[in-house]
């Protein structure tokens, strides 16, 4: 009770101080006579000079029933540990951060092309090693401080500070040699070597305000252990950028009144509730206390029949281009010795046995599409002529006998020449029901060929350790993929070291060459063919049995308007914000 009061006090204080600061700045400005009465950007007369990025938002705001106000309320299924950028590792946190932090550039949902957000424009040197961004001069952080090149430089340096616990980002940005500020509003990225994703690397980096984070360079531990240090230039902000703690349960962002953007965001607040229990979450959605609910296939089917639910919601089934693919990885080397899966034919046989279409039908209820390779069927990296392996028992058996497997002691299980029965453990992550179902199905399928598979559920940490040690027979997991997928980390033989992501120890020199080459080529038209030939090798080798990409199945409250499909998937909550709630349906005042 007391501390709650106290918290509110501090919040008020910060607000006051900020206002006073503004006043001061204003006075200064007036004094210097430099104050141009540039209209504060709002949708009406910002027609002409609206930045590309805001076009869609603007369009939305032109809709007849468009209105500002109301909240967007969503749910997390586990409690967030921290929302401090860099320190946080989970999706939810980055979800929150995306509303607060901004980067230089962003992808256009329609064209998937990059376009400026904070950057007005950019130039890439011919060798592709240098990228320089021209930044907008009217951008300020939510506390009123202007956003300059200095902040961008700082963000990079900050990430690169060893003491800061940001190994992931560091690993990611290591290709960048230096970031320099060139004047107040120009920043230059220099790369060590040509890299095909250079632009997204540089432009995608979220910009941290120097004045806010700089102090933590000295006391990194404080930063590493912080829970709620979040301040940025984005459309939303924490009421108190320093003191959010997990025990609050909810995460709540309020509209950034100083937002520089051409179109102010519609919602007054964005609220995330933590609801662990599934049925509780559904009930909460039914009660209208959260705005969206994403369902598992079986569930989705059920719910579509449920009129109470349908009456209040719009449902979407879509396949985001960045969706990951699920696979079975066949471990080829264990304790230094090649396993039975080291033999290409065995892997192919297993793929033939893995009746993906059946899985999609029975387990995913057709809310998924078969995966041929790491590349999404829509991406340019993918070669359309490749077709997924069909289910073919005969062929599989043939392959296996060819390798020398046959049932030698009549117990129904195949044995190899040394009489060792063909049985293996399939490791999977226990928490996911669908995976469990799939594994059970596979068990029966493999049994038909006399292969004995033993389901082996594990908790996440244990699984990771086994991956690190490469201590497993076969494993089913999923990789997320980007618009354009890099094969290096997963399939390049150099990554087959311990703790590497090529934990199935798949080595193919030919593929290695292709990957390296592709990564070096910046020119897309040259790069894609390389990817495609790499894909063909994977298809032939089947280091993984590529299974499928799952659709997202989503129910959204009718309140939320202007939901559209884009190339990036559903535009729910995508920034700059395009969804809104008409006045009539608005639920939360304040």
């Amino acid at each position, binding site marked *: 009770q007391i501390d709650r009061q106290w918290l509110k006090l501090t919040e008020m204080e910060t607000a006051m101080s900020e206002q006073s600061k503004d006043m001061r700045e204003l006075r200064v400005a007036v004094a210097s006579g430099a104050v141009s009465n540039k209209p504060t950007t709002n949708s009406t007369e910002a027609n002409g000079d609206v930045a590309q990025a805001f076009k869609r938002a603007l369009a939305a705001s032109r809709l007849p029933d468009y209105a500002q106000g109301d909240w967007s309320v969503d749910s997390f299924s586990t409690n967030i540990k921290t929302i401090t950028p860099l320190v946080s590792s989970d999706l939810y946190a980055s979800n929150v951060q995306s509303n607060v932090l901004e980067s230089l550039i962003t992808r256009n949902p329609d064209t998937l092309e990059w376009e400026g957000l904070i950057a007005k424009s950019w130039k890439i040197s011919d060798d592709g090693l240098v990228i320089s961004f021209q930044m907008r001069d009217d951008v300020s952080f939510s506390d009123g401080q202007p956003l300059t090149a200095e902040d961008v430089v700082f963000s990079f340096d900050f990430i690169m500070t060893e003491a800061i616990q940001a190994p992931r980002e560091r*690993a990611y940005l290591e290709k960048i040699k230096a970031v320099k500020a060139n004047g107040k509003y120009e920043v230059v990225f220099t790369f060590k070597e040509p890299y095909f994703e250079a632009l997204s690397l540089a432009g995608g980096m979220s910009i941290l305000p120097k004045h806010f984070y700089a102090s933590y360079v000295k006391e990194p531990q404080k930063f590493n252990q912080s829970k709620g240090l979040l301040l940025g230039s984005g459309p939303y902000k924490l009421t108190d950028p320093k003191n959010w703690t997990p025990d609050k349960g909810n995460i709540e962002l309020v509209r950034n009144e100083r937002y520089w953007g051409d179109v102010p965001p519609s919602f007054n607040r964005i609220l995330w509730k933590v609801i662990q229990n599934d049925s509780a979450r559904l009930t909460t959605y039914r009660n209208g206390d959260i705005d969206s609910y994403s369902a598992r296939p079986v569930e989705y089917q059920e719910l579509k029949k449920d009129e109470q639910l349908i009456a209040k919601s719009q449902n979407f089934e879509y396949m985001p281009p960045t969706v990951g693919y699920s696979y079975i990885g066949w471990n080829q080397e264990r304790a230094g010795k090649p396993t039975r899966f080291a033999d290409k034919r065995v892997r192919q046989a297993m793929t033939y046995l893995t009746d993906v279409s059946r899985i999609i039908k029975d387990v995913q209820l057709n809310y998924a599409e078969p995966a041929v390779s790491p590349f999404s069927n829509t991406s340019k990296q993918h070669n359309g002529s490749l077709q997924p392996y069909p289910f073919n028992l005969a062929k599989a058996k043939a392959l296996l006998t060819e390798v020398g497997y046959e049932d030698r002691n009549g117990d129904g299980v195949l044995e190899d020449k040394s009489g060792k029965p063909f049985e293996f453990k399939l490791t999977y992550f226990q928490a996911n029901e669908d995976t469990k179902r799939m594994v059970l199905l596979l068990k029966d399928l493999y049994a038909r060929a006399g292969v004995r598979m033993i389901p082996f559920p594990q908790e996440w*940490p244990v699984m990771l350790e086994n991956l690190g040690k490469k201590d497993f027979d076969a494993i089913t997991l999923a990789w997320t993929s980007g618009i354009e997928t890099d094969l290096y980390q997963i399939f390049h033989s150099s990554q087959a070291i311990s703790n590497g992501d090529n934990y199935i120890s798949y080595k193919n020199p030919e593929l290695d060459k292709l990957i390296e080459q592709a990564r070096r080529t910046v020119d897309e038209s040259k790069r894609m063919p390389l990817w495609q030939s790499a894909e063909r090798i994977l298809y032939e080798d089947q280091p993984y049995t590529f299974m499928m990409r799952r659709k997202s199945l989503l129910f959204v409250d009718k309140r939320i308007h202007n939901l559209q499909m884009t190339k990036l998937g559903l535009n729910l909550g995508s920034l700059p914000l395009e969804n809104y709630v008409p006045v009539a349906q608005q639920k939360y005042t304040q």
Partner: protein
Amino acid sequence: MLTYLLRRLLLMIPTLLGITILVFTVMAMSPGGISAQTLIGGTDMKPQEKQALLNYYNKRYGLDKPAPVQYLRWLNNVSPIGFTIDEQGNRGEFSFSKGMDLGTSFQYGRPVSDILAERIPITLLLNLVTIPFTYLIAIFVGMKSAANRGGSFDVGMGMSMLALWSIPTMLAGVLLLGFFGNVQHFQWFPTAGISSREAQDMPFLPHWEQTGFVRGFLLDRVWHLILPVICLSYGSFAALAKLTRTSILENLNSDYARTARAKGLAEHDVLWRHVFRNSLLPLITISAGLLPSLLAGSLIVENIFSINGMGQLAVEAVKGRDRELVLSITWVSGFLTLIGYLIADFCYTLADPRVSYD
């Protein structure tokens, strides 16, 4: 009395040590140790990065050392007195002033003490509401059944209490949620958490405003706690009620009750003035024993009603192989229980003049 307290506190030490040793050994023997834990979220790290991180942790927690050494090290950090240890992990001189350091949780990357400081109050709140509630109901039922022993109420209640006891908590929880938190049936109670967003900026006490009735933080809390508390409590009615019943019957037949009647006291007064107090004595001792089961029982309830208490923490910690956290959780909850017992005994001395500790 003081010496007694001291003695009890001293006796706690071996117990707590035992607890930690037990848990530590279990964790040491288990697969997927800390090293795995450190990699969570590190999935998209470069191998070198992972290796670096591992080394960092190894150095920090001496994970490369044999288990006993690790334990001693941990113990030293936890105990309020011991050797000071500097960043490099080599031992300084012995000090009595160095505070307790519960270490840092791997998966939360925060000091364990902070996390516990967040979670324990919530669980305690739950239990401190639940225990009295349980006792009220149980005592009431127990007395009525004793009053008309063998009567329909007695038998019926005995049965239904047993029945309640036998319902699996998760089922009860989900059903309650499904019926009393659901717009399709009766949306009387909230579905998650222990206070709603609005309550954050409500005044503490309920009151009227021009907009209408404002339930205030307090009522909001209560409103959120109702379903969880029911879930936590219904299981323990049976035993308590039974105990009350027997001990009341026992005392009603006792000699001193007869003496009281011989004085000319009415049955009612005999019950309330003489029997009642004596009958409750055994209940006091039980109360502490309830605590651990409640702590653990809340584990399910917390999960269902999305309350971030010790129970949740325990599950996450154990599943995440979060050594520091698991250790601390276990010994802290052990400690709480011991304190519970102590308090119970203390109350006993107050309630019963016969026992006096010196």
